């Protein structure tokens, strides 16, 4: 009895103190740690992005692993959308031997994790974080993968100017970096290129009543010829529905977060809405092939562009390991930082010469007849991109 008791206690201790260790990596294995939010408020972004990443790693493993050589062991831990938990989990993954770290879409969680990987020299990639300050806040191991907010905003502003727009109304929400800053970046570029910001409005995320703001827009003496917002679900559908319901026909421009099935399902209500995408699935394109493959892999179609972005992270890592020729963390980091014109699913991705937020083409899309139609692809001039 006493012995059993001791055994039980040992088992409990092991469970509690995490001594139950993961099998250590063998020579042909590379551990990738994913500290991502599978529950909580950030799960809507991290879940699909991680699904894409898993798909690419599965495919790569079938072909012998990263660089054809290192079979990936993906360790996934849930951060519960909590910053402190993200850091803890990241530390555990480091302890478990992760050579590469994947962090959430959320910037502060990613920074917290990055502060641990930076001294360890572990290359760290955020799933879909697009805040431009993200990489500099951590250091040289931190990489963004998604087009940064200011880059997207510049592309949209360039497009707006080319469409002859002169007066813009900016609709922001202080509740997130993305919704607060992206329209403001747009405003900066737009004003620099001769446009004018004629009004500003705000909304609270998650609260679907835009009536007061819309009544204000309607009552403006100087009517804008463009409304720019980074609102997304559930706010964007509510906004556009109420805006058009109130008889306001001013065109609305947004960014990448509204390229989703939910928005598309609004049908003719969103006709004319311009948004950005990392790429577009024209027939015969790689993206279309990916969409089909993902549907087969996951049992449902991609719900956002985060899936393909996650998938591309796998490709980037594969290329970096190939270039590095080893599983050395520093070599991999340097290889990622040196990537130039890497052909992903959605287009070319370049890290060389950037502050590790990738330079990638921004596709401008417009909803027409319930479908997103490609309008133009732009690579913004670096000089135009406003400082973070």
């Amino acid at each position: 009895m006493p012995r059993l008791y001791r055994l039980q206690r040992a088992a409990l201790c092991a469970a509690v103190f995490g001594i139950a260790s993961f099998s250590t990596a063998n020579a042909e294995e590379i551990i990738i740690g994913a500290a991502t939010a599978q529950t909580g408020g950030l799960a809507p972004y991290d879940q699909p992005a991680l699904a894409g990443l898993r798909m690419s790693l599965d495919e790569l493993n079938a072909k012998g692993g990263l660089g054809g050589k290192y079979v990936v062991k993906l360790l996934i831990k849930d951060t519960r959308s909590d910053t402190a938990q993200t850091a803890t989990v990241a530390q555990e993954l480091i302890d478990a031997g992760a050579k590469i770290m994947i962090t959430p879409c959320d910037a502060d969680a990613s920074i917290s994790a990055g502060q641990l990987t930076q001294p360890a020299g572990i290359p760290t990639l955020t799933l879909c974080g697009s805040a431009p300050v993200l990489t500099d806040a951590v250091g040289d191991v931190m990489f963004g993968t998604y087009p940064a907010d200011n880059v997207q905003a510049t592309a949209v502003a360039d497009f707006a100017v080319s469409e002859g727009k002169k007066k813009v109304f900016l609709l922001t929400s202080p509740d997130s970096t993305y919704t607060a800053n992206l329209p403001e970046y747009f405003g900066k570029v737009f004003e620099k290129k001769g446009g004018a910001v004629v009004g500003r409005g705000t909304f609270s995320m998650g609260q679907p009543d835009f009536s007061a703001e819309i009544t204000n827009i309607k009552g403006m003496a100087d009517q804008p010829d463009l409304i720019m917002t980074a609102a997304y679900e559930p706010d964007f559908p509510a906004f556009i529905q109420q805006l058009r319901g109130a008889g306001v026909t001013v065109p609305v421009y947004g960014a990448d977060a509204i390229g989703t099935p939910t928005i598309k399902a609004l049908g003719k209500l969103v006709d004319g809405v311009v948004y950005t995408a990392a790429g577009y699935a024209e027939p015969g394109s790689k993206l279309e092939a990916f969409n089909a493959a993902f549907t087969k892999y996951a049992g449902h179609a991609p719900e956002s562009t985060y899936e393909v972005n996650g998938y591309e992270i796998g490709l980037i890592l594969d290329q970096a390991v190939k270039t590095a020729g080893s599983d050395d963390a520093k070599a991999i980091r340097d290889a990622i930082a040196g990537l130039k014109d890497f052909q992903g699913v959605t287009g070319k991705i370049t890290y060389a010469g950037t502050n590790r937020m990738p330079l990638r083409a921004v596709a401008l899309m417009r909803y027409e007849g319930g479908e997103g139609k490609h309008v133009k692809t732009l690579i913004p001039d670096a000089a135009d991109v406003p400082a973070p």
Partner: protein
Amino acid sequence: MFAQQIINAISLGGVYALLALGLAIVFSIVGLINFAHGELMTLSGYALLAALVFGLPFPLAVLVAVSCGALAAVAMERIAFRPMRGASVTSLLLTSFAVSSLLKVVFQNGISARPQAVAMPGWMTGAFSFGDFTIGVGPSISIVVSALALILLETFLRRSVTGTAMRAAAEDFDVVRLMGIPASRIIATAFLLSGLLAGLAAMLWVAQRASVDPLMGFTPVLKAFIAAVVGGLGSLPGAVAGGFLLGIIEVLLQATLPAAIAPYRDAIVLSGVIAVLLLRPQGLIPAVRVQRS
């Protein structure tokens, strides 16, 4: 323009009133502030989505969704709250938090963390125009539905025996039982009504946002809670008054605050709530309740 904002305010206030009323009915009977009320809305939203995907015509789908909310509320009481009957307000409140977080996890990992589109019929996004003046179909429906729901509920509470018993139970539950009226019937009716109201509010909420997601219940339940408190926790007329008041204040502040101050809107509203509590700790229309020993 001003008239338009008033309509906006009434439309939003109506939804808040329905939600606050749902909280208040349950609180007045069993002393539970049900934070999982928001998840009842989410559930109704998913039920609507499922019914539409299944091919039901829109009105029937709405019926199914609202009934789902009502049944889920009754089930929630049976499973989670019944064992706690008689516990303190705080214990019950925390239990409802736990239920709420459990349901969110189930939605996120069982359905999808991403928002799902709900196709609303096209006519719901139209507008009536009277010369310069336009009223959206959405706000109109919202006003009509809230008004109808409030009138029907009032009629039920005034005319029917069960309704009368519920008003009495809010005052003195024990004595209602002494009249031979089963406690379980009163409590089940309270949850049923609260679920119905959550379902109805969910329909109006979803109609505005055209999507459902696992976390969508949080904001409305918070607003409902604030409205119910301002009105007087457990007081049904208070909940309605609080709902409309909150709607009106939010819309008017949104319409009039300069952009630089606008982000502080919620802080201003909530400071108002504290001020109301300081002046009238029992709310605007306090609930009549005997001291239960």
